Structures are given as structure tokens and as C-alpha cells.
């Protein structure tokens, strides 16, 4: 720099002291020190990536083993049949929903008393009962097989544990004890023989089931109203489709081979596209991230739908319309809101907002709103409203900056052409700062998707994909989110277990998602900025 430039000409050097370290002067050392600190942010980013990979990368291998055991122990085989049973259960639920509708029809439209309505439904109840019982042959088979396969898996797990025990003993040099650990490898062929042997029994049970089902369905009672009859017809149709799927199940069972290797891609795809996050279950653990992603996205969507009009609207108001006094007062107030810690907002949601929204939903004249009334206090809506309050200050501040950067000349030219204030704002100022506003919204999204405490406390924490068939009412259902699951389960998992690693992989996903959002925001600002000449 300036001090080292005349170094060649010794006459003009005015070095104070002759401190040298690796040939560097004191000034150079200081410079290196500061430079080193500047690199810290790069290092931290690299370390985050490294440690997320370090802890999480083992997941996919473990997940593959997990899936292999699932296949070897015959759990997959049983699940083919179990799916058949579960589908039947879903149809039974359809039937009980139909009963509720009929009951309402009798009591509300016909004005019958409760007892009379129940009496009118006796025929239907009989039908529903028979329908429910028709699955009995399949159910018996499944529960037998479940016990057997669980036993195989259990034995396998015990052996795996013993292997670990032996390696640990060998590691500390206890050879005698290690030799004493008896490991009997599981002979899957022999173990699975009795299970595969049930195929004829299944064929019989399935045929029996189909026969019963057809018999029951033939005697379906007529519905009292045409709207209900349509539902009944739909039910018949669903059943026809359901029974048409039986041969496919049989074919699956016939061609099933426990020795077929689990492809590596399946370890990834079962995580990325898996529809179930099920841990610590007696049957089979699933680590599918879809329910969590859907939960995060739904909550963020609700938050943004509320926060974008409010944030952008107030930014326009403060920047273009408000009096200087209002500006001076409101800006710090909104900054103040951004300082409310998220855990306090989450607590507010549990203590006040959840109940308040539920009470609001039960007000009679609001029942036209989809999803109202609802009974779950903590759901997407509650969390979304609170997250909106978190996103508004972010969107407001950045959008206000963007509006501020529009050159004065734009506005003046517009006024000079005779445009009104509203026209100027909508046609000139907002389009000119649109890139900044969009990036503000994106950064708000990043903030919302990464928010942990509010969703952990207020989103309801039910790990399931919300039921989208409910239409807009889906926002009144509880969900679990990516951030929430990490915060909730990280404290309880065994270090190094597959569950532990799965959480790190979720963290990795979140990390890259936030980087992508950030990148998109910067890209939009740079690409579409109006050159201010």
C-alpha cells in the first residue's frame, strides 16, 4: 500500500520500528489480520455445509439398509396386503361420513327427533356394519403375517446389535468376550418360507372378501335424498374401482422377490418423495420429507398472502402518501415489531390467537368461510397469521428502500404530464421499483420458511400431508414443518442413528433452499434494476 511503495529507495523510508514477522511489516500483519476476519464469513458458510454433510451424509446408506431389511424381513410383502385393508378402511370412513349426512338430513330437513332419525337409519347401519365386517378374512391374515414378520425383523435387529457389540469389544481389546457374543446369521430364505406359503391362503381370503363385498354392496339401501343418492352411487363406483385392483395385488405378491436388491436411487427418492415421516414405529420407520415440505410451504404461503399486501401497501403509504410526522412515527414502530422475538409470538399464538381465531370461526354468520368452523386450535392459519407479522417488517423495510431508490425525476415527469398521484404511484413508481419489491417478498419468504419457534408452537405438529380434497379449508388443518421437526426431535434422538442423520438431511435441504431463495432475490434485483441515469 502507500507505505510500502517507496521501499526501493531506502533514503526516503521512515519506518517506525523494524518489527518483522515472516518478512511482513507490522502494517502488513495488521492487514492480514483484518483480511483473515473478513474471510470468516466464507469459512463459516463452508463449515456449515461441511458439518451438515458430515452428520447427514450417512443417512442415505442407512436408509438403504433400512429399506433392505424392510424387504428381506418380508414387511414389504405384508404391506401389499395391508394396503388393501387400509383402502377398505378409507371406504368405511366414507360410509360413516354418509351416515352423518343422512342423520343431519333427517334431523334438520325432515325435523325428526334424534331417536326417530336413528330408527330411520337402522337399515343403513346394518349395511355399514356388514360392509365393515366383510374385510375379516384379509384382516386375520394380515395380523398373523404382521406378527411373523415383526419377529423376523426383531431377530435381525438383535443380531445387528450383537455385531456392533462384538466390534466394540474387539476395539477395546476384549477378545474373549467378543468371541462369546454368539451371532447367528438370519437365514431369510428359511424364515420367509412360511410367509410366502400363505399365498394360496391369501388367494382364498381375497376371493372370499370379494364375494362378501359384492353381496353386501348389492343390498345397499336407497338414500332418502337425491344429493345423498349421488354420494351412494359414488361409493359404489369407488368400490368397483377398489375391487378391480385386487388382481394387481395378487400379481404383486406372486412376483415379489425378497432378494431383489434395493437400488441406491431408492434411498434418495424415498426421502425426497416419501409421503410418510414415521419414526419409532414398531413396524417400519419411514423418512419421507414431503409432509414436512408441504407443511412448510403451506404455512409460508398463508403468511405471504397476508403479509405481502400489508407490507407492500404500508411501504407505499409511508413512502408516497404519508405526512412526514406519520413517517417519523410509523417507521420505528414497524422496526419495533421486527424486534419481537419469535418465541414470544409463538407463545402469543398458543395463549391468545389460537383460541381467538377458533372462537371467530365458530361465529354463525362467518360459517360461509371455507373451513369454518374448526376445532383444532393450532393449525396452518394460526401459524400463518403470526408468521405474517414476522414477514411484514422485512418486506416493509426492503420494499420501502426500493421505492426510495426510484429517481425523483420519474415522479416529477409523471406529474408534469398531468397524472394524478394514484396514477403516478401505480403506473410509474411501483413498476420502477418492482424488482426491489419482488426481492423483498422473496427475502420475506426466506425469513418465514426458516422461522422455527412460531411453527413449532403454533402449527399443530401433526406429521401428515394435509387433506387437499377439502379445498381452501385445508388451511385449518394442523401440519408439521421442516424447521419444527428438527427443533422438536433433535433433542431426543440417539446420536448417529438414522433418525439423527435424517434430521441433518432435512437441515441440509433447508439450508440449500434458503440459499436458493437468497440467490434468486439478488439475481432479480441485479437483472431488472432500472438504470438510474
Amino acid at each position, binding site marked *: 500500500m502507500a*507505505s510500502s511503495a517507496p521501499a526501493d529507495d531506502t533514503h526516503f523510508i*521512515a519506518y*517506525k520500528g523494524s518489527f518483522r514477522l515472516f518478512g511482513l511489516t507490522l*502494517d502488513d500483519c495488521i492487514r492480514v*489480520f*483484518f*483480511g483473515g*476476519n*473478513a474471510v*470468516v*464469513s*466464507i469459512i*463459516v*458458510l463452508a*463449515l*456449515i455445509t461441511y*458439518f*451438515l454433510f458430515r*452428520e447427514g451424509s450417512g443417512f442415505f446408506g442407512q436408509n438403504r439398509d433400512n429399506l433392505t431389511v424392510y424387504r428381506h424381513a418380508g414387511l414389504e410383502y405384508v404391506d401389499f396386503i395391508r394396503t388393501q385393508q387400509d383402502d377398505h378402511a378409507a371406504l368405511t370412513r366414507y360410509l360413516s361420513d354418509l351416515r352423518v349426512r343422512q342423520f343431519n338430513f333427517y334431523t334438520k330437513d325432515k325435523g325428526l327427533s334424534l331417536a326417530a332419525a336413528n330408527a330411520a337409519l337402522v337399515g343403513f347401519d346394518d349395511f355399514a356394519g356388514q360392509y365393515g365386517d366383510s374385510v375379516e378374512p384379509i384382516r386375520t391374515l394380515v395380523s398373523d403375517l404382521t406378527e411373523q414378520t415383526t419377529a423376523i425383523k426383531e431377530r435381525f435387529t438383535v443380531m445387528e446389535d450383537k455385531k456392533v457389540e462384538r466390534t466394540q469389544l474387539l476395539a477395546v481389546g476384549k477378545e474373549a468376550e467378543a468371541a462369546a457374543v454368539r451371532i447367528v446369521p438370519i437365514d431369510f430364505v428359511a424364515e420367509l418360507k412360511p410367509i410366502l406359503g400363505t399365498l394360496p391362503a391369501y388367494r382364498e381370503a381375497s376371493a372370499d372378501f370379494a364375494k362378501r363385498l359384492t353381496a353386501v354392496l348389492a343390498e345397499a339401501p336407497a338414500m332418502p335424498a337425491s344429493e345423498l343418492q349421488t354420494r351412494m352411487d359414488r361409493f359404489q363406483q369407488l368400490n368397483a374401482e377398489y375391487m378391480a385392483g385386487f388382481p394387481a395385488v395378487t400379481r404383486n405378491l406372486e412376483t415379489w422377490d425378497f432378494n431383489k436388491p434395493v437400488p441406491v436411487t431408492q434411498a434418495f427418492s424415498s426421502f425426497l418423495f416419501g409421503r410418510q415421516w414415521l419414526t419409532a414405529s414398531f413396524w417400519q420407520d419411514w423418512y419421507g420429507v414431503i409432509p414436512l415440505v408441504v407443511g412448510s410451504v403451506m404455512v409460508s404461503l398463508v403468511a405471504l398472502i397476508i403479509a405481502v*399486501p*400489508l407490507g407492500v*401497501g*404500508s411501504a*407505499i*403509504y409511508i413512502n408516497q*402518501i404519508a405526512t412526514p410526522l406519520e413517517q417519523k412515527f*410509523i417507521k*420505528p414502530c*414497524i422496526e*419495533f*415489531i421486527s*424486534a*419481537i*422475538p*419469535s*418465541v*414470544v409470538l409463538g*407463545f*402469543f399464538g*398458543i*395463549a391468545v390467537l389460537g383460541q381467538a381465531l377458533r372462537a371467530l370461526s365458530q361465529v354463525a354468520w362467518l360459517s360461509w368461510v371455507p373451513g369454518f368452523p374448526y376445532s383444532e386450535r393450532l393449525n396452518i392459519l394460526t401459524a400463518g397469521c403470526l408468521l405474517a*407479522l414476522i414477514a411484514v417488517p422485512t418486506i*416493509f423495510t426492503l420494499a420501502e428502500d426500493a421505492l426510495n431508490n426510484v429517481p425523483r425525476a420519474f415522479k416529477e415527469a409523471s406529474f408534469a404530464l398531468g397524472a*394524478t398521484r*394514484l396514477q403516478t404511484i401505480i403506473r410509474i413508481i411501483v413498476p420502477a421499483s418492482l424488482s426491489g419489491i419482488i426481492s423483498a417478498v422473496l427475502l420475506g419468504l426466506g425469513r418465514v*420458511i*426458516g422461522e*422455527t*419457534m412460531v411453527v*413449532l*408452537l403454533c402449527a399443530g405438529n401433526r406429521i401428515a400431508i394435509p387433506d387437499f380434497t377439502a379445498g381452501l379449508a385445508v388451511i385449518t388443518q394442523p401440519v408439521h414443518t421442516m*424447521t419444527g421437526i*428438527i*427443533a422438536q426431535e*433433535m*433433542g431426543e434422538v440417539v446420536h448417529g442413528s438414522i433418525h439423527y442423520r435424517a*434430521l441433518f438431511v432435512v437441515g441440509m435441504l433447508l*439450508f440449500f433452499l*434458503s440459499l436458493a431463495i*437468497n440467490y434468486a432475490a439478488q439475481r432479480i434485483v441485479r437483472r431488472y434494476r432500472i438504470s438510474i441515469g
Partner: protein
Amino acid sequence: MSAAATHPFQTQPSAARRSESAIFWLFRGATYFVLLCGAVVFLNIFVKGSRTVFQTKAPFVNTAFFTESPESLYVFQWQGQKMELGDKEFRAFKEKNPAAANVKAESYVYCAGGIFPCIVGTVLLVVGSMTIALTLGVSAAVYLNEYARDGTFIRFVRLAILNLAGVPSIVFGLFGFGMFVIFFGWNVSLLAGWFTLAFMVLPVVITASEESLKAVPKGFREGSLALGATKWQTIYKNVVPYALPGILTSSILGIARVAGETAPIMFTAAYVVRDKLPWQVDHFSDFFFQGVMALPYHIYVVSSKIPQNEYTERVQYGTAFVFLLIVALIATASIVLRSKLRNRYKW
């Protein structure tokens, strides 16, 4: 707004004018709605929390709430009276009245006593992490603003800072857990929490410091260099002192963020409950390797792990009140100081 002079030729406002003012009212409504929402949250917690924190008797402030550790609360009927006693009091009461030995009491965890250890823990976490963050952040800002010239490397650094600012706090928590707690073997400790929080707040500090450094006029540096001072002397004597107030006030917002975050300390520094206070350690070095209780985590615990009723509400709202008060004070200080500073330094 519209200059409304009354004169005989004044016409009715046109439709366009009326729709314009309606739309302006819409924007105004949005703004005040946001403020209203913020106010509702604040007021709800202040009103309900002040019932725990303040009292009508002599010192007016519930000192026990600030100076004691959390305890279980026991509620029971005794000789026709409803008694509410903390854990220690309840035991003393049983010793004094042997007949009460078998009294049926309902217990509520964390609902008696106070939140002293949480306050101490939060203060320790904030002080430690801000020390680290300020050291790293200010030095980085000095480099970026005083030494560095534009180039690929500096672009990378700035990109990293921008991206670091967008990383979710829970990911910092995971990172801190993976690196400090597991890999370095520090366990759940103050030190792990300090570094995790410091890294999280680093982008805020760097950006704030750089802005303050930029505000120092070029003439200060040139004058100093012209007098023969070295670069370091210039920075040390003529740049940083003038930027320091700005750096500190802007960093206060960083403090509010550090104090308010729960997710990063959940697995790195915070304990649900701990009997010993941080200074009750055997060796000096143990001080850094102990977990602490912290206010935000305590709020999480009392609002999610125990049911809601009139007894638990007291500690829930009380803790939230104290916490919000601290954060609000920090934020107000930052806003007020900043506006004062803007008026004082003008060059």
C-alpha cells in the same frame, strides 16, 4: 393532501378523485392494521405479564420473581383455605404441620419461584456472543472498507455475507450442534452457544460496521496519511473512533436478535432446568463448558411442555413480559441512539 379552498366555483370532487382517496385510505388502513397487530401483541403480554411482575404491596415489584430459581407450585386445600406454596415452602409447611403430610396437592412445574437463572444465562450468552461477533465483525468491516479493493475475492466475501444473513437460525443450531457440541466435544455449553450465536449475528454486525465506517469522511483519512501516519495509525486514531458510536448503536439491533433467538441455543447451550447458577463451578475452566438456562428457551418450555391454566399462566406471561421488556429496551435504545447520533455528527 388536496388543497381544499372553498370558493363559489368549487365542484364536487370527481369520481377519479374520490376513488383515489378511497385507495389511499386502503393503504393507510393496511399500515395502521400492522401497527394495531403489533400493539395487540405488546399490550396483551404487558397487561397480563405485569400482574406477575408488579404487585400492590410495598416494593411494588415482585422481587422474588427476579431473584429466585423456578420451582414447582403446589396447590391444595388446608383447613378450608386454598394454599399455594412453592416447593421449599411446601416442604417446610409439611414439617411444621405433621397433619398435612398426606394432603393431596396438585403440582405445577416451574410455576413458583422466579426466573433469575434464565436472566443470568441470557445475559451471559448475549455478552459472550456479542464480544466475539463484534471482534470478528468490526475487523472484517475495517478490511472490507479500508484495505480491500474490488476484485473476485471481495465479491466472494460479500456474497458469503449476504447468504449467511439468509441462513435459517435452526440451521445454525444444527451446525453448532454438529461442530461445537459433537465434533469439538464441548457438549451443551456456554462456549458452543457463544460461537453459534456469534456466527449467526455476524452479517448484521459487518453490515452495520461497514456503513458506519463509510460515513467517516475521506478527508479524515487523507489528512492523517498526509501527516505521515501509517495506514494502521490512521485507522486506529482517525477512522474507528469516529465510527465506533455508529457501530455500537447499530449492533444493538444484533444484540436484540441474539437475545431473542431460541432455535440456535436449543441444542447448543440451553438447559431446561439447572439447579446451579453459572458461577457455582469447581474450576474456572468449567465455567465455559456448562449449559445455562435462558429466557427464550424457558418461554418455549413453559408454553409448550405444561398445560395452560390460571397457575401456569402467571409464569408464562411473567417470563414473556420480562423478556419482551428487555428486548424492547434494547431496541428502543438502538433507535433513539441512532437518531441522536445522526444529529450529532455532521461533516
